[in-house]
């Protein structure tokens, strides 16, 4: 009788642990997916912002057509979409083109005094920060999730229900090469 009681108790404890672990893994996975969609939201914000920016600075930058066209082309590619790898690459190019544009912008003092351009540049800086932070948060959540599916004894549950690790969002090579631009308003 006592033995049966103990066995039932142990089975119950293991069962509860199982359910708890499974649920916590699911919620961690959802968090990663949510963090990923945040990056998407911010990238969309950047796509929407660029046409306004280009229109506002077009008149001033007669000698910088190339830089501006690079931004326009990179945006077109990024908006076109495709596989995740293609998109990551296109967004990386766009980031590179934009930071070159921001650097060029420093050379035009009359641009800085234009209120509308100033606002747009602030929006652009903010959007770039948002993308960086969204990516950083995504990577942090992925790290927590990946660690928990590899740690014992959670890994037993993870294997049983086929929880796969997520890939980190690395900065594209094009982005790494571009110099960091310090903006002071």
């Amino acid at each position: 009788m006592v033995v049966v009681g103990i066995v039932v108790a142990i089975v119950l404890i293991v069962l509860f642990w199982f359910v708890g672990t499974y649920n916590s893994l699911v919620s961690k996975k959802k968090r990663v997916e949510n963090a990923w969609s945040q990056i998407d939201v911010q990238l969309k914000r950047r796509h929407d912002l660029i046409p306004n920016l280009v229109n506002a600075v077009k008149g001033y930058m007669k000698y910088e057509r190339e830089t501006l066209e690079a931004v326009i082309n990179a945006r077109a590619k990024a908006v076109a979409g495709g596989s995740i790898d293609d998109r990551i690459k296109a967004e990386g190019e766009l980031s590179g083109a934009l930071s070159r544009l921001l650097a060029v912008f420093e050379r035009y003092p009359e641009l800085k005094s234009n209120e509308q351009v100033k606002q747009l540049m602030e929006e652009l800086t903010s959007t770039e920060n948002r993308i960086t932070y969204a990516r950083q948060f995504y990577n942090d959540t992925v790290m927590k999730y990946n660690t928990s599916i590899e740690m014992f004894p959670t890994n037993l549950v993870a294997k049983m229900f086929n929880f796969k690790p997520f890939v980190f969002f690395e900065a594209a090579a094009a982005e790494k090469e571009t110099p960091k631009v310090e903006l002071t308003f």
Partner: protein
Amino acid sequence: MVFVFLFLMATLGLVIDALFGVFPFGTILLIFIALIQILAGVSSGPALVLRSINSRKINEKSFEEKQLKNIVEELTIAAGLEKAPEVYVMEDENINAFATGFKAKKSAVCVTSGLLKHLNREETEGVIAHEISHIKNKDTLLMTTISAILGTMILVQLFAWRSLKFLLWSNRGRRSSKKKDSGVGYIIVALLILALVATLFSLIGRISIFAVSRTREYLADAKAVELTRNPKGLSGALRKIAKMRKSKGKVKNATIATAHLFISDPLKRSVNNKEGFFANLFGTHPPIHKRIALLENVPEEIVLKELQEG
């Protein structure tokens, strides 16, 4: 936290009931007080604080204030909060900021107009990251709950001392009946114990509020760096705050009750800039040179010297 508070209050009520044999009056009364305190705190918390210091919502047409809103939204993403806190500005020459709100969803960040004027984007990012960290760590809820417990302790303490005084005073001339005397004596002893315990608790409570407040400041500094991955912004801001300390007065409308919310002590009490036993017990904020030294990873003596010379 709220339940811990209720539980503590109920226990205290039971103790009072046991001492006086008036079950369940004490328990019900104390739970009632606790509920009122919680409701008052939760319902009017952020709104009340924001009104009491005379702040206004930001104007998105102004460049600086729109930039501030952008920064708050950026760091909301970095911290992974669901909704960005509301942004407020208070007119004051000092550089200061605070966060308030019990839930991340219903929180607010408020900065002084002096901060908008004197800090650049990077430094503002550092300060806002510190405030967002307070929200993320639920520091306001923690501090408010501790304040509520402390408030109750002070109430009990006052009640016990008053009734003790009253009993002793009214009992002076009447020494005739021995039977009655022993009953009153029992109550007096019980009240005395209660009064002493409550006094001790409120003293410990006061010290622990300050201790929690100080640790939470360090924690928010660390979290801010984790969010921005850039210690320079916050340390630069703290340096500017330290420099302005001497020239400007107190932050208008800030009180002892709201001081622990700010990024640096708005009342500029000297205890918050000293070290030693007393300051370690009663300061709400860690000394500013210590915070800068930790952020920049240099010995604190050097920072202190630099600040005194600059």
